[in-house]
């Protein structure tokens, strides 16, 4: 079996009766940015702490580069962590904070000085060498925390909600910078976050976690466009979910009848399900087209009344109440500066989507 760089084999962690991490197996390749994405309390932080060595797994194995981490205490692991609170030592200057990790290895003081300078150049914090953490802004502290973790040249860098404490503008900027630094140094990142936008921009691959289990692993596009479970479809982005039954099943298409929709849903690929099986259908809001005229197709349409319109600048979000009473979200890109006069509140509207748009799964 080919060995991945980081390998988790059936890892579980129980606290008394509570199972925080349940039988997780995972492999991460060298140089990846792997994001663990999940709501709070789903076990992602516990998984990170298992990797850092602050918790010991109840069962299972953790391997980095083929080396079993089980008996290695946190202070000898080739792993460093950037804490959510940054955990900068308040009584030490930026320089001393960053040098702290290197001082624990037997390095000459000139070597320590050189490497501290080098990493502070990369995170652009060299001018703040002598400052104490309380004299820095949130973004600057984040950089120091990153530099402190990276200066040890770890095989694996763990980041706990790395952008959580930053404001929105700074986050967007920092996200891309983080990717730059990662590519420059080639360190493997494992990021924990509850923010899907953060996961989408940072990650090469995402592992979605729920109740201590990894429910799906894939690239951001795979996770978004091809969610394998209803939980993932619902958790990532916003989505319109319908329940229905399989009415026609061919090798290259299926038709699903949903009680909340006037027409059948046509999907352009086959699935393996028994006839009449209960299914769920997910259609993303941005894949729904609005029109004021009725559709010619027998499938993939619905009719309703616009209840709310939210103008967000680049997008407009429409909340449409279907004839069945069900509310559906649709988003429209504002490509033109002219207002779309025909879509106003309480006006009648036809919704439609392509056969390639819906995601289908069994209940």
């Amino acid at each position: 079996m080919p060995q991945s760089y980081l390998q988790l084999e059936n890892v579980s962690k129980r606290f008394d009766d509570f199972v925080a991490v349940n039988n997780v197996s995972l492999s991460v390749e060298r140089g990846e940015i792997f994001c663990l994405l999940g709501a709070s309390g789903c076990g992602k932080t516990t998984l990170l702490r298992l990797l850092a060595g602050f918790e010991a797994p109840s069962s299972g194995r953790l391997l980095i580069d083929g080396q079993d981490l089980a008996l290695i205490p946190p202070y000898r692991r080739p792993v460093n962590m950037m804490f959510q609170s940054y955990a900068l030592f308040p009584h030490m200057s930026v320089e001393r904070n960053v040098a702290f990790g290197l001082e624990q290895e037997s390095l000459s003081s000139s070597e320590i000085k050189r490497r501290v300078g080098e990493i502070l150049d990369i995170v652009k914090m060299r001018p703040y060498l002598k400052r104490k953490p309380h004299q820095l802004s949130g973004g600057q502290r984040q950089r120091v925390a990153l530099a402190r973790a990276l200066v040890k040249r770890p095989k694996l860098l763990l980041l706990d909600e790395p952008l959580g404490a930053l404001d929105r503008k700074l986050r967007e900027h920092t996200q891309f910078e983080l990717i730059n630094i990662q590519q420059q140094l080639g360190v493997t990142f494992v990021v924990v976050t509850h923010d899907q936008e953060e996961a989408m921009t940072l990650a090469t691959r995402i592992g979605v976690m729920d109740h201590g289990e990894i429910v799906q692993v894939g690239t951001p596009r795979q996770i978004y466009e091809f969610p394998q479970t209803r939980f993932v479809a619902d958790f990532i982005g916003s989505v319109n979910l319908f329940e229905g039954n399989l009415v026609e099943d061919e090798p290259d298409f299926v038709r699903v009848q949903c009680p909340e929709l006037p027409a059948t849903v046509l999907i352009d690929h086959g699935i393996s399900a028994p006839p009449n099986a209960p299914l769920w259908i997910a259609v993303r809001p941005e894949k729904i087209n609005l029109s004021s005229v009725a559709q010619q197709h027998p499938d993939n349409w619905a009719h309703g009344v616009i209840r709310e319109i939210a103008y967000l600048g680049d997008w407009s979000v429409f909340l449409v109440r279907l004839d069945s009473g069900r509310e559906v979200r649709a988003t429209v890109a504002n490509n033109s500066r002219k207002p779309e006069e025909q879509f106003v509140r309480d006006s009648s509207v036809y919704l439609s989507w392509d056969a390639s748009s819906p995601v289908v799964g069994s209940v």
Partner: protein
Amino acid sequence: MTGRRAVLLPTILAFGFAFLYVPILTMVVYSFNASRLVTVWDSVHSPTLKWYGQLFQSGQIMDAAWLSLKIAVMNATGAVILGTMAGFALARFGRFRGRGLLGALTTAPLVLPEIITGLSLLLLFVALEQLIGWPAGRGVTTITIAHISFSLSYVAVIVQARLVGFDESLEEAALDLGARPATVFLRITLPLIAPALLSGWLLSFTLSWDDVVISQFVAGPGSSTLPMVIFSKVRLGVSPDVNALATLMVLLVAVGVVASALYLQSRERRLAREMRMALGA
């Protein structure tokens, strides 16, 4: 309304301060009195420093002061070490077996009457001497042990409170960066709880410096602490040199208290600010 309050508040304040400080002031004034009779003010020869001079020539008092100082320092140091351990156990080790008992035992000396603490310690020392021959007789050792036994409770409470507000991710970060647990303690934990340790040390020093009751029980012949000497002198009638001695002690304590309060306040404020800012809260 405001007019009445403008009179009332200063009056209350004046009474309050008078209640607290007039006795001490009287004592300070009389320490400069030339008369041998404490209650009679000799306006012809006063003020004088002769009682202060006598004080420094009295072997008994100087010996007692030196003994008290030694005991207070040993007590403060011992209490900080043991009290810190107890504080750590209570704040950090979660729900271990006997945690409740330890908590009760560390807080007991805070509420136990001194006379009972003193008596029980005396009984313990006597029994120990009969059983294992240590501590042989009563003196500096027994007084120091007795003082540590109640001072450490105060230190434990202070350290515990400090640790409860301590962000453990700082220690985890240090571990993660390759520091062994001992290094983490010396370079991260200790500097950050240092103000608590210092105030614990000063408090223990003061508790020991002015303790009479417990010392009385566990002291032996030739090991009279300064408060014990004062107490025995006063029983024979207040002499003016006691006033001088007491004035010096008040001065020492006042300077110590004010200095440490100022230092701790500024340091505490700075640390709290650094901690808050560093954690981005």
